């Protein structure tokens, strides 16, 4: 599967319940009420389903912004 940034943006918007326009590279974990630790679990689960990957716990913890998430998810998609 090819990594698709727009697809990741859509998953973020869906999982966090925010408009796609708000999903920008600088969007950071725990800076908006919609992206708290509980939402993070849901987000990871939806990313895994959408891209058919399994993210390790260390990477899950590191995914603290949309920009970092792009790099990490891309890495998994490329390896798959």
């Amino acid at each position, binding site marked *: 599967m090819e990594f698709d940034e727009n697809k990741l943006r859509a998953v973020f918007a869906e999982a966090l319940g925010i408009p796609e326009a708000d999903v920008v590279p600088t969007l950071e974990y*725990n*800076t908006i009420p919609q992206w*708290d*630790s*509980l939402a993070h*679990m849901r987000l*990871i*689960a939806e990313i*895994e389903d959408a891209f058919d990957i*399994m*993210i*390790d*716990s*260390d990477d*899950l*913890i590191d995914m*603290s912004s949309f920009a970092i998430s792009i790099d990490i998810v891309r890495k998994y998609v490329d390896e798959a």
Partner: protein
Amino acid sequence: MIELSELFDEDAYSLGGDEKSAVICDHLALLSEHHYAHCPEYRSICDAFGADTAKRISHVSEFHCLPVRLFKHYELKSILGDSNVKTLTSSGTTSQQVSKIFIDKQTSQYQTKALSCIMRSYLGPKRLPMIILDSEAVLKNRQMFSARGGGILGMSNFGRKHLYLFDENMRIKHEALEEFLDKHAETPIFLFGFTFMIWLHLIKELEKTGKTLNIKSATLIHSGGWKKLESEKVDNSMFRQRISAATGIERIFNFYGMVEQMGSVYMECEQGYFHASVFSEIIVRDPLTGEALEFGKNGVIETLSILPHSYPGHAILTEDQGVIHGQDDCRCGRKGTYFSILGRLPKAEIRGCSDTYES
């Protein structure tokens, strides 16, 4: 000096001896200075006790420690500016007053990463299908993080396809459980819960209804103290036995941790001992003189953690009794200090800083 960020990528139990004490001493020295500069209450206490935070300390037992109950009486924090801070409280089930711990983004990140590093040693890097032995209702009130909710969310990072086993009335969701076990029959699974909840709502419930589970390849991690179980005359070995009988689980690990030092938890090993990781150290003190005791002697436990930056919780005198068995030579293969907890201190109050501190 080895930076925290470097430690997170290493094995949590690979450092021993002088190397390990140097890491702990270096970081605690920095933390002591940091809190002395930014937490007025901490500074007053250190001054009152003549604790010199600037001098180089040669042994971990020389850092000034705060009695744990101080966090119930004072709002201790070393937070610069108006950063994003969450307040964590102890559940307060056995005492009226709760501890209030102030955690900023940086400290929260340290705690998460340290916990991940520690858990890797027990669960591996892959996230396993996870059963949370609690009700999702615990997470409903998001304004005030309870220790229970915080603990569950912290541990959820190490699992996937989370199933909260209990409904809002703390009853086992049998159908959902069967479905979950069918779906993950081929993979090892991971369970996490609080000791007393597991005892009350899983073990006793299964025993009462005569049901058993067959999840032999699962790993159970639990925490939360034995106070309520002691009154039911249940100790660790009986707890383990009854879990194994009811569920088939044999890999069962308790951990010793507290809301005042989240992240740097002390995990029980395969030999049944708690272990200090590279992020923490343990000292046993004479309850009367405060002197650090040698291995094998019972006393009051002091816990050291190199994670707390937003509050002065790096050296805490607990109200638990324990004994250190040794260092770096546990048969489980993990390095670091290993110890046992021998229960709470008798009711007698610890006369520490909390009684003399009045500014």
